[in-house]
């Protein structure tokens, strides 16, 4: 049976683990460790390998949900994770010093995968920091020549994560009927 994957990526603390937890049918398998680098200033533990969740579909098929580790030194794993992926969910933390730089970094890193599939962007922590606005993100993306969905997302809220994933899938094929 084929392996179908949706990949969640983004910087440390953007909510990848939480987002996977929101829509997974199993308690997600986390590979967290106590943070020992700069990450420890943001949270006590962080993902060092990957997060993993599953969505069970009618008919027995499974969609595997993979979260990449946020730290750049683990980027060698990204190529392995994206193989066979349906599309990319990029989560950005709006309280970080320069979320646009984060966005550019991840869009550049996954450029080939995005060109072959698609990307949807979720901006988290907007209730803590309302700038940049969603419109500001669209302006930045316009300069990069792409127009993906960009939504405010609370990674803890299943509906937010669900809508973000739905927008990714409809971007792949607007003709899908649920």
């Amino acid at each position, binding site marked *: 049976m084929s392996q179908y994957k949706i990949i969640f990526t983004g910087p440390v603390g953007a909510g990848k683990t939480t987002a996977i937890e929101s829509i997974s049918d199993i308690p997600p398998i986390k590979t967290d460790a106590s943070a020992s680098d700069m990450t420890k*200033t943001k949270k006590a533990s962080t993902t060092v390998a990957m997060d993993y969740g599953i969505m069970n*579909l009618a008919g027995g098929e499974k969609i595997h949900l993979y979260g990449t580790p946020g730290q750049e030194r683990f980027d060698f794993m990204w190529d392995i994770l994206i193989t066979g992926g349906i599309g990319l969910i990029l989560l950005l933390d709006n309280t970080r*010093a320069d979320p646009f730089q984060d966005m550019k970094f991840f869009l550049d890193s996954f450029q080939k995968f995005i060109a072959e599939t698609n990307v949807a962007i979720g901006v988290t922590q907007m209730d803590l920091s309302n700038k940049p606005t*969603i419109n500001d993100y669209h302006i930045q993306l316009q300069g990069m020549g792409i127009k993906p969905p960009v939504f405010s997302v609370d990674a803890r809220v299943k509906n937010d994560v669900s809508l973000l994933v739905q927008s990714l899938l409809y971007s792949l*094929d607007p003709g899908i009927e649920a």
Partner: protein
Amino acid sequence: MKDERKSPLKIALHGMDGRNYKMMVMYLQGPCKGAAVVEDLNAEVDMIDADSVQAKKLLEQKLAESARPIIALSLQELTFENILYVKKPVKTDDLLFALSEAGTMLSAKKKPSHQVSSYPENATTRQSQESIDQTESRLSSEKNQVKKQAANTNEQKKTSKHQTAMQLDEGKFNAYIGSVPGLDVNDPKQFPDAVYNPKDYFQGYVQSALMVAETKKQVMHLNSGWKPLIIFPHNHDIWLDADDKQLRAFAGVAMNKISGPGMTLTPADPSATSIQGGLEKFHDKDAFVWKLAVWTSKGRYPSALDIHRPVFLRHWPNFTRLVITPHALRISALLMESPRTLPEIAQVLNIKPQYVFVFISAAYALGLIGQTKREADEIFQPSVIKKSEQQSLLSRIIGKLRANKS
């Protein structure tokens, strides 16, 4: 000099790009505890990057219009009177002293007349960058604390503003949206009549009032003879003393020539007790206009659009904070591929025209819809969409996600 204030000093930042703005927010919440960055409207103190392009204009404007203390950050020595000056690279002690002075002045209700600086005059941009880097490093270690502080702000208490989207299916549509008696918007022969002019409804007055408030950058009260509506242009909020049910009913009522001209727009006091006590009545401006347009449309499309010409979508709406009408995500995805006429969207997606019309009405109200003028856009209209090889799989994932929504 010590400022004895117990509440944080509310500061508005001006002339800073996104990165510097964010850095200063964190700096003020971290090393300079006791200060909080707020929207211009609610501020007690203005802080201006006096090296920015628009600094001169900003300073003149603030000096003329506002009695608030002003803190100016600059690499150059400033000689303005009535301004607290902090020389760049900004050091915590200097900034704390300026903040303390500003706090004292607020208490005493007087204007400043001196500089705050203990730094050599030959400061360079390089030093400024080093200072920023050091600051950034310190900031990250205090970020958790900052988030906890921020979590207690009024912003998070605006529950309506941050609530997740309501996703309507076809079954709920008519009950939620309503319909126009005697008009079948899904009958192609009646398409020419399936139009509405937002200006004839409350929607038009709200949109007009929003433009005025944003242009003037002033809190405004729309007096409609109905419920009080107050516009906060600085943080894109609308405050309405009515629930959705009441708004939905009022949205559908055409304003006649008598009630329409009776509407007035006047400056409002944002600190009014009734507003401060009703944080749950705040709405995000875009989410408010979107749902107002949905309820005004009732499945019709705006009269300004030519149904025979293709429309395009400038970018995806922020769906997680909007009322999601049936097939809205599919329509968005389709329009992001290429412009299409409204009937063609319905035909290609095999959906009722009313779902297209209502989505287009809402997106048009937010300025997201444009109409093509180039002939090329009409000539090269693809009549079918490319079907994904995984359509069945994608469909089942969507079905699963929609079934599981919380």
